């Protein structure tokens, strides 16, 4: 994921992190969730009188409260970590309480990783048992590896074995996390099947096995609209309960996320400040949302959706790009022309089908919209 936005945490991250005072983690650029929110977790644990599943730090109800926010009886305020449908968090937490693994699906920028980290922090008090999925993730990252110096010196033994995060989680009854599950090659993915269904990890070299103890579970995240991913085998799919994290519900929320994030990026790239970009950002977000949802904002016209994801993250990069154009080559004001080319690139991924969709959108929607004339012209120019 190139750009990761945590829409839901819009207000949370920066400020909270700054104020967090946790020993040792204070110096970290980005402390783990269980450190940053240690006070909240402690408060929840202290007041949580509901039954907790084995080795859980909190009851499922308290985990849901930790994610969704609330006020405890003693007045402690729990900040919301995820702003979105309550149902989603409830289903996710409940899944972890059963012995099914949890699969968080969503387009980039829907806070999958964020939610998974906080879930692990709240349930097991440790969000670091993490396997980052890539095209090169080897089997060892999920099962175990060997310390070759030990192996050569003393032969195979448990001492020479390097456990993976998943193996450790099994042995200790913790929550393991697998990021970007669908990027992992299919044969490596399938090593998870035994772990999830038999709850055991055999070590044939030693004639041993590691059995998962109660409390072990696994949270995986995956991108459901990205191209070039390794589809999960149905055998693996069956081991997961799937929760799809939705895109930001309202246009305002999304505009907010985009402008916030654009500002951050702009600062870090030392782009000159560009005033008054908010209208153009709103326009970009509107276009993205309309095409993504397949319906205009007023809900009156249906549209075809292009093949691209058109995620919030892409909207951010379009605007950032536009800002750079405006700052370096334009008059310093973000204008329709600065974002038009970026939008075209984001929308038209498949040159044949998407181009028609884009033109239909231009002709049927953009042309008729009040105050969008400049945008229409700019888009016509770049699409011609």
């Amino acid at each position: 994921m190139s750009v990761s936005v945590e829409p839901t945490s819009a207000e949370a991250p920066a400020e909270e992190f700054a104020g967090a005072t946790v020993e040792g983690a204070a110096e970290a650029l980005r402390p783990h969730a269980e450190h940053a929110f240690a006070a909240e977790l402690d408060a929840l644990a202290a007041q949580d009188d509901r039954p907790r599943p084995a080795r859980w730090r909190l009851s499922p109800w308290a985990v849901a409260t930790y994610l969704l926010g609330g006020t405890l009886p003693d007045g402690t305020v729990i900040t919301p970590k995820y702003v979105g449908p309550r149902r989603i968090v409830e289903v996710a937490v409940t899944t972890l309480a059963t012995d099914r693994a949890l699969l968080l699906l969503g387009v980039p920028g829907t806070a999958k990783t964020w939610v998974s980290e906080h879930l692990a922090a709240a349930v097991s008090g440790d969000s670091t048992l993490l396997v980052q999925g890539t095209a090169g993730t080897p089997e060892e990252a999920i099962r175990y590896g060997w310390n070759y110096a030990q192996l050569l010196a003393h032969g195979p033994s448990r001492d020479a074995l390097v456990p993976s995060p998943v193996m450790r989680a099994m042995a200790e009854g913790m929550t393991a996390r697998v990021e970007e599950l669908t990027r992992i090659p299919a044969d490596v993915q399938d090593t998870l099947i035994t772990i999830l269904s038999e709850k055991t990890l055999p070590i044939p070299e030693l004639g041993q096995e590691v059995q998962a103890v109660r409390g072990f579970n696994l949270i995986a995240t995956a991108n459901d609209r990205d191209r070039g991913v390794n589809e999960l085998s149905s055998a693996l799919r069956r081991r997961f309960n799937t929760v799809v994290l939705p895109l930001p519900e309202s246009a305002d929320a999304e505009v907010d996320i985009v402008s916030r994030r654009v500002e951050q990026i702009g600062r870090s790239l030392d782009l000159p400040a560009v005033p008054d970009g908010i209208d153009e950002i709103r326009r970009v977000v509107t276009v993205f949302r309309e095409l993504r949802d397949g319906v205009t904002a007023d809900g009156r016209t249906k549209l075809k959706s292009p093949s691209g994801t058109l995620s919030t993250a892409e909207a951010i990069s379009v605007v950032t790009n536009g800002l750079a154009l405006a700052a370096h080559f334009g008059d310093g004001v973000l204008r329709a022309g600065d974002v038009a080319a970026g939008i075209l690139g984001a929308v038209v991924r498949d040159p044949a089908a998407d181009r028609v969709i884009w033109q239909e959108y231009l002709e049927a929607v953009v042309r008729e919209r009040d105050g969008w004339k400049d945008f229409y012209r700019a888009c016509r120019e770049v699409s011609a």
Partner: protein
Amino acid sequence: MSGARSDRERGPLLLGVRHHGPGSARAVRAALDAAAPRVVLIEGPPEADALVPLAADEDMRPPVALLAHVVDEPGRSAFWPLAEFSPEWVAIRWALDHGVPARFIDLPAAHTLAWGDGDSPREKEEERREERKEEQKEKQKEGEQEEAEKKEEKESGEEERRRDGEGPERNQESSPAVEVTEAAVRIDPLAVLAETAGYDDPERWWEDVVEHRAGARGDPFAPFAVLEEAMGALREAYGVGGHDRDLVREAYMRLQIRAAQRECGDDVAVVCGAWHVPALRRKTTVGADRALLKGLPKVKPDLTWVPWTHRRLSRVSGYGAGIDSPGWYGHLFSAPDRPVERWMTKVARLLREEDQGVSSAHVIEAVRLADTLAAMRGRPLPGLTETTDAVRAVMCEGSDVPLSLVRDRLVVGDVLGEVPESAPAVPLQRDLARLQRRLRMKPEALERELELDLRKETDAGRSRLLHRLRLLGVSWGEPSASRGSTGTFRETWRLRWEPELSVRVAEAGVWGTTVLAAATARAEADAVSAPSLADVTALSERCLLAELPEALPVVMRVLADRAALDADVGHLAQALPALVRSLRYGDVRGTDTHALTGVAEGLAERIFVGLPPACASLDAEAAEEMRRHVDAVHGAVGLLAETLTTSPAGSPSSGGSPPSGGSPSPGGSSPSSGSPSSGRADPSVGIRHRWHSVLRVLTARDMVPGVVRGRTVRLLLDDGELAQDEAARLMGLVLSPGTAPGDAAAWIEGFVGGGSGGGMLLVHDERLLGLVDAWLTGVPAEAFTDVLPLLRRTFSAYEAGVRRTLGELLRRGPRAAGSTEATASGMPGFAPGLDLGRADAVLPVLSLLLGLDESDDVTDLDDLVEAAR
């Protein structure tokens, strides 16, 4: 709970229920079994007493509805839908099974129907439809996630609706005309109770407290006693809660209960909305109750049973009962035990039928997840929300697509009720009879032909009636081709009334009480479920013919949506002509077709955008089809442009985008269309202009098949958009040696082929004919056999006269190059007469072949030439 028993001794058994609550239904059955009353009184119109025995008929299958309407005015009507799981239905069946009389005790429909008089029935109907539409829209928009909860809360609205006395008493739904806003100011007893209990959703509260506990063993009267107490407290606090008419209805109910008590003592059971129980319990004097009932307006009602569907039960307003999940309720009611497990199994079966891989392991996991979710949410049993969440996460892989199928097939369900034939005639039949009288059209079994002149009032009415009946599936008349005149003012029908048409009319009764209302409802439903875009377009045409302006917005909306999502330009191209035809008919009949214009324009726009890419790389067959599409669109665009010109200049729809075509104000200048983008000043010019530029794009693209390119050149030429010279240049280009002969022949076919009058073009423009001629003579022998069929198809379609003229022209041979008679432009052409010199040149060879003597046979050959000439 002891209260119930003691009450039981003191007075009638009052069973307060929630209408359509499966838990209530079970409780009612248990209570009736335990109490064994001698008479069962039910909240409902007393005029329907005579209809009760029909409920036991074996052909009677819920969901059904009691329908009351004003005699001779079927448009004023009210419905009391009953599902299998409705407590009232359970009570009726219990009474019939035990040979105990069942009576309805609510205020007679004679009064409740008359109450509605404030507004004309016509208005009511409109309002109803309006609401229904709103609701549908909402439903579409609503995210699936909240589906259940959100809508369900309306059900509590049912309580309130019931209370409003406007409808007949029955709460359930009952009163079609209730406005939502009006209801909002009244208190909702369930909401108040739920809020007190700390629930934000009254529906869920009810489920947790009543529905899911009703199965518990114990005193069958306990739930009623508790509920009565709660309602009693509410009524103390809120009085009638804004439902003033309740007082009157309750007074009537009390009188009826007293009458029953005189007959049977205290062995009387009353099934009514829980809200009424405290009032029915109250001691009042007969005199006071009578006084309340004095002077009520009255009409003559007529009642019958009509079949109902689960889908209609789920509509919140209009005829619906506001139950969002009748299928789920039906399941809860009929499942003997383990409702969640059984439900998940049903869902799994459905998904398997649709080829989704769902195993028993999935079912097990889904049940576990639902149970755990319920525990976490603090509910006694998984409700619809929990089961839906579990199904989504476990069986549907987080996707809402299969889930919507579950919702459609199971949560709502496809159940269709049946009513025995012996049920009294539905009001639709009466309305039809009335119309037949008024229009002087007698149903006759003998086939006869009817000529209608739509300019005459009566004939127009007849035409409308026949079209509407056809929409309803009652094919009394079949349109046939008009004899002689084909003008849009004339229609010819073949009429024949067959006995089974009466059955059809009865069946159509579900759609409404008048022909107009039923046809409108039917058209709307058809539009939503139509399989293809062309079907929707055809439907819109029929709506115009049948003059159902109220159905049009829905049909148009569906049409616009389908068009937006249909990626096949062919479909769009098929739809456009019908749509434009509708516009024309609409004009003839004076219908307001602004909405249609907007949609047509939008459709045309989409075709313009999609056509060029769609024309690339087609095989011969597809190319031929595309040519037909191009022709059809061309004709439609022409008509559309005409329509736009003739419609008032300021018509907003002409400048508005398709979606905004919804509410045009004729003649008004809408601000949004005040600033159309350049070139749109005159919409008719604009649309034609854009079409021409699309055609021009097509002519120039090599990827486009020859037949389409030829056609586009021809269309442009005919419209005067392309100069003759330019057409000739393009033709020369195509017919030059670089083009494959097959493609060139196809081009020719497109350009001058078929019945397009291309022959005359060739006759009049010798230059073009010359090009064809020159090309044809240059086609290599091996390619000639390939192009021959195409050419034959092209030229054989010409009329004999044209063919002959062409033949004569060709026979003369090409004009000699550099001939003095060459026209100024030097264009190629044909000599004015036969080229005798060339003809003579073959003579020696001919005579050689024929072995003729040179001397005298020359003259013979001359004769031959003469003859040929």
